C-alpha cells in the first residue's frame, strides 16, 4: 500500500506572517500534520497563514475537507488564510468549490506576502 506523505515546513516571514510549505499529498492522512503546522505557526503569533502549494503532488476531496476545516478555524480566530503556487488543475478545483472566494489565491509566494502586508 502506498503511504500517503505530507511534509510541512513552517517559515516565519514577518512577526505575523507564516508560510506553510505543503509538500506531497493533501489527503485524509494529512490531517494531523497540517493541524500541527498551523498550531505551531499560530502559537508563534502568526495572523496570516500562507499555504505554499509549489510542491503539492496530489490533493483529493478529503484534502479539500481539511482546508475547509482549517478555514473555519482561521475565521474563528480572525486570522487570514492565503495560498500560492496552485497548479491550473487545483485552481480549477478551487474555483469549482468556491474556495478561491474564501481563500486568497496567488501565483507566487511573493505575491501572497505582498497581499498579506497590504
Amino acid at each position, binding site marked *: *500500500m*502506498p*503511504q*500517503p506523505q505530507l511534509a510541512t515546513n513552517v517559515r516565519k516571514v514577518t512577526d505575523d506572517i507564516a508560510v506553510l510549505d505543503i509538500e506531497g499529498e493533501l*489527503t*485524509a*492522512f494529512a490531517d494531523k500534520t497540517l493541524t500541527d503546522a498551523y498550531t505551531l505557526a499560530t502559537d508563534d503569533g502568526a495572523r496570516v497563514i500562507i499555504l505554499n502549494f509549489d510542491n503539492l503532488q*496530489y490533493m*483529493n*476531496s*478529503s484534502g*479539500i*475537507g*481539511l482546508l*475547509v*476545516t482549517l*478555514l*473555519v478555524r482561521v*475565521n474563528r480566530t480572525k486570522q487570514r488564510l492565503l495560498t500560492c503556487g496552485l497548479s*491550473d*488543475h487545483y485552481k*480549477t*478545483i478551487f*474555483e*469549482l*468549490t*468556491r*474556495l478561491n*472566494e*474564501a481563500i486568497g489565491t496567488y501565483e507566487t509566494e511573493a505575491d501572497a506576502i505582498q497581499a498579506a502586508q497590504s
Partner: protein
Amino acid sequence: MTVSVQTLWSTVRRRRLGRSTAQLAETARPTIIPVPEIAPNDPLVAYLQSVAAAVDIEDLELDSPALRQMRDNGVQMVVPLVSQGELIGLLCLGPRLSQQEYSADDRTLLNNLAAQATPAVRVAQLVRQQEAEAQERERIEHELQVARLIQHTLLPKTLPELSGWQLAAYYQPAREVGGDFYDFIELSDNRLGIVVGDVTDKGVPAALVMATTRSLMRAAGQQLDSPGAVLERVNEALYPDIPENMFVTCLYAVLDTATGQLRYANAGHDLPYRRHGTEAIELRATGMPLGLLPGMAYEEKETVLEPGDSLLLYSDGLVEAHNQDGDMFGFPRTRELIGGFVDTAGTLIDFLLTELSQFTGSGWEQEDDITLVTISCSAAHRSAWLQSESEGQVSDRDPLAAFTVSSVPGNERIVMDRVAEAAAGLDLPETTLEQLKTAVAEATMNAMEHGNHYQEDMPVAVEVLHAADDLIVRITDQGEPYIPENPEIPDLDAKLAGLQSPRGWGLFLIQNMVDEMNVTNDDSGHTIELIVHLKGETHGSPV
C-alpha cells in the same frame, strides 16, 4: 508368514523285488521324478521344521496332501533343509539302490549333508530373489517412463488464448504416475470445452485408458453440444473396452466465451469451484464415473462466470494430500482458501500450491498426481458483453485496461496512475487528463470506502474502454448502492457556517470533472461509469 518350500531333487528307484538282473539293471537307474509343491499350511511343513532331521515317511501319520503325493511317487526318506527355523527345501529320496533299508550311518550322512547344503541353498535363493526384484524394479521404472511419456504427449502443450479470459493449468505427476488428465476442446461459436479427469489405477494401464478417454471426449465434444450427452456417449464407448476394476472420473464443461455461460456435467469427479467475490461456490452435478456401468445418464447444470469470477477444476491429488500428522488437506480448507484468495497477489494456482506446501511441510512425497486448471473472466470482457447485450448488437468498445485493487486507503493513487497510463494513447489535453484522474481517484475512494467499507479482501474492479468518441472508465465495488437519490450539493458558505460537514466533496468533484457520470447496479456489484467525450464539445473549466 508364508513358508516357501523348494524341492531340490529326488531320486527314486521303484522297489521291484524278485525281478531279473536285467530288469533290475533297467529299473535300478536313478530316476528324477517331480515332487509336488507343498502348501505353506500343509502340516508336513510344521512337522519337518520341528524335527529338522532325516525322516522316514512311512512312519509319518499326518493328514497331509503333500505326504500322500510323495508316497505315491515312491519317496521313502525326506531330509528337511531348515534355515533360521524356516523350511527352505527338502532332499527327497527313494529306496536305496542296494534295496537295503537306510542305516543309522546313512541318516547321519544325510543330516550332515543337509546341514552343509542348507546355507548354500539359502544364499542361492536370496541371490535369485534379489535378481528377480531388481528385474521387477527395472520393469516398473520402464513402465513408469512409458506412462509419463504417454501422459506428457497427450496433455495440452499450450493453452487456448481467449479474449477476455485467462486460462492457467498445472499438472504434477506423482512418482508413480497416476491417471490425471485435462484437455481443452476449441468448439464453434466461441465455445470452449474443458475436460478434467482421473483414471483409477496407475502406470501404463491408466495412461492408455486416459488416452482413449481423451480421444473419445474430443470426438463427442465436437459432435454434441450438451455436456451431459457427451459424457453419456463416452461412457457407452468406454464401457465395453475398459479393463475390469478400472473407471474414469471426468468433469466436462462448455464455456460460452462471449457470454460467460458455463454448462457442465460430472462423471463422479471432484466438484469444481466457482470463485465469486469472496465466495467459493461448488458446482454440483451428479453422474457415475465413466466405464463402470452402461446406460448411464448425466445431470447437466449451468452457471454464468461473471467479471472477476474464476473457475477452478482440480483432481483429488490436492484435496487428498496428507501432512505428517495424517491430516488431509480436504475440501473445507480448499473452499475457504479459494474464497479468501486476493488476486492482486499472483495466481490462484500459485496460491493453492503455496498453501499446500505449507500444509504438507518439507520432505513430502506427493501421493497422487495433482492437476489444477483455472479459467478467469476479466472485468473488461464482461463489460463489453453487457454493453452489447443491452444494445442488442456487437460492442465496438475497445478495452484499454482492466484490473482490480484491494480496498486499502491510498490505492486510489494506483488506479489514477494506471488509468492515465491506459489512456496515454488517446492524446487527451492535459487539463482533461488531470480532471479525469481526479474523478477516477474520487470514484475509487468512494468504492473502497462506501462500497467495500475498506475490507481489504473486497476488490475494486476498474475497466478503461475506448468507444468511438468516448473514453469510459468503469469502477465497480462489491457493496450495496451508496449514492443517495438526491445527494446534498456541497456549499462552502454552509460548511463555513457549520451547517454542512466540511467533507462531502467527492461526488461533486466527480460530476464536475467528467462529461457524464452513470451509476449502475447489477448482481456483480455497483458501478460508477465515468465518460469523457473525445470529440466535439470539450469539457471545459466548470466555473
